[in-house]
């Protein structure tokens, strides 16, 4: 949340704001694509912040680069590939699906299956065992009496 602090204090006295008026492309369709791409690209000197949100000068350079590539006719994927080739996958805010990242992506679904397995098992065990009664054990009844009689 406070990631701007660092950038601001490191780089500039006078902040440039995220997307500047002079960066905006004339073609609204291309601009829209540029904005969408920017939201998925990391400002490399910031903490977990996209170049679309960032005030850093480096983020501005990347925004301009994305627009340059789009104007040159690149597809969205080609732009991303271009950025990754230059700056590494560190620049992608959404990690690629594949390789060791599979662990990251399937952690949720696998975790859900695992938890469902435990949960359903618990429900099954509980419903298969209707003989257990709701009454208090003698031990608990004693304790209850002790508490009730205290007042």
């Amino acid at each position: 949340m406070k990631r701007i602090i660092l950038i601001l204090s490191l780089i500039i006295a006078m902040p440039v704001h995220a997307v500047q008026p002079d960066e905006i492309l004339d073609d609204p369709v291309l601009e829209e694509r540029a904005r969408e791409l920017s939201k998925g690209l990391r400002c490399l000197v910031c903490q977990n912040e996209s170049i679309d949100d960032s005030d850093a000068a480096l983020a501005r350079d990347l925004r301009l680069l994305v627009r340059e590539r789009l104007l040159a006719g690149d597809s969205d994927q080609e732009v991303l590939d271009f950025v990754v080739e230059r700056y590494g996958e560190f620049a992608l805010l959404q990690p690629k699906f594949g390789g060791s990242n599979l662990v990251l992506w399937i952690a949720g679904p696998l975790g859900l299956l695992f938890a469902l397995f435990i949960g359903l098992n618990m429900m099954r065990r509980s419903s298969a065992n209707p003989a257990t009664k709701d009454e208090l054990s003698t031990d608990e009844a004693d304790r209850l009496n002790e508490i009730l009689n205290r007042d």
Partner: protein
Amino acid sequence: MITEFGHFALILAFMVALLQSSLPLIGASLNRHGLMAFAMPAATAQFVLVLAAFGALTHAFVTSDFSVQLVVLNSHSLKPMIYKISGVWGNHEGSLLLWILILALFGACAAWFGQNLTLTFRARVIAVQGMIGASFLAFCIFTSNPFLRVAPVPLDGQDLNPLLQDPGLAFHPPFLYLGYVGLSMAFSFAVAALIEGRVDAAWGRWVRPWTLAAWVFLTIGIALGSWWAYYELGWGGFWFWDPVENASFMPWLFAAALLHSAIVVEKRESLKNWTILLAIFAFGYSIMGTFIVRSGVLTSVHAFANDPDRGVFILIILGVFMGGALTLFSVRASELESKGVFSFVSRESALVMNNILLAVSSFVVFVGTIWPLVAELFFDRKLSVGAPFFNLAFTPFMIALGLILPIGAIVPWKRGGLGRAVKSMRVPFIFAIAVMGLVWTLQTGQSLHGPIGMFLGAWLISGAVMELILRLGQSRDFARLLRLPRADWGKFTAHSGLGVTMAGIAGIMAWQAEDIRVVNVGDTWELGGYEFTLEDVRQERGPNYFTTMADIRLAKNGTELALMNPEKRNYPVAQMPTTEAAIDYNMMRDVYVVIGDPQADGGWAVRTYIKPMANWIWLGSALMALGGLISLTDRRFRVAAGARKQTTIGGVPAE
């Protein structure tokens, strides 16, 4: 002098905490009343001593005593008083001291209000609380002493980070800490129960209010932080999936799961193992959060302490407490036999589903947060995990949660028919579908966020209303509503709040409009049906900053609505600029204006946003917190824990 007194009190508190964590435990296992009874005065003494230390530090900040290093680094004589005070916890050492103070307060609460617990159990709870206190006191004294002096004494301080000089953020950390640390109570109760080898309804009834209180504080703390980001950071983002935000969000999710499963323990004496495990993990996530914030291991700017020693120290604390508690759990879990049985379709099962979804979603956040670290350490890949991943991987769990909530909330305990519950919820469901259809047709070719979010919001809110109507039964006697237990009203409020927040998040994500342009004084522009006129830009002076302030007139169809004053401040001492957005608040939309830099060829960069339903996010959070508070005032928490059992002996638990 007062500073040294504070330092001394802190060391004394550490000594007391060591005794508090050992003597009562020994007493409990030997059944020696004297040793057990030591727990209560020790907890009180520890609290008083830490309070004295905290008071001494606050005194140094308030009087701007620049012979204390911490004050030099984080304060300034010109700073407004409220920020001198909030500066106490606006830094690593001071915030740690606040953490410990709250921890000691909770321990003391167990001593003051625990009369209806058995002496052995109370002694054990306070002892475990004492252990946590001792480890963090040691951490504070040996690695992060707030009372260090400097010589020579500088003339003035270096000021608190200007972004933190804000009323929203002044109270954000204390609430978060009350939440984090509140979960230590659930942990201490869980460990004490494991040592004792018994978990019963009384246990559930004790743990639930503490968890509920912790969750309420966390909700308020997180909402304050998110609201602050919204108005202060200058583009109206409200959640960034920053590691440090995640660090507070994970325990929140777990606490939400815990407070629901504690209901099952309390009412049905079921899910005991599960609840104990949740309690252990919930606090584990709190320490993990402290680790993430304090160690700087994930290098976020939140990590004002980039000191590996500190990280290792907290990791040891985490390892010892989690390892110890889980070992104890594996030894004792089989003894905690659950009694209440329930069939496949029942409230218990619904709450198990709630727990599963909340716990797994929290796990997803956890994996996403530490993945960059894991990938670098083990796979030699430097990568980022940002908002797009979390939005994709986390959201489905919340949608599923929202879908099952209204049905699960009315399925009867023990044994229910799904058919009946579904049937009674058909009106809210049809209503929600209608809302979704309406939204769908009103917006063309836009994201699915809008329709889905509005459906969930309508479904949750109308479902909560329907539940109240069902409680009325056939009588239609509305006076009966007032006589419902407060816990039911709390449930209604909190569940509606969740719906309001979900709708708000969907609304702002789906329909935000944005405009970025260069504007000259006198220019008019338009966005989303509103007209804006830049009337003036002037320089002004605040108490400890300079500001560039704009007058922007907001109008709709020629009618003037407001004069908005976005600012760009510069804090000369800290050499830092901040943006102060001007926001015209409204239930259905916020108009959000930010003034940027002067342009080379005249004019100013101005950013304008229309943010539909933004306030629903925080209104919903407030409702959730309020719901928790209402539940806390329920009769069964106010009277002695055992007393109400009288009415339920041998019968079905009353709701």
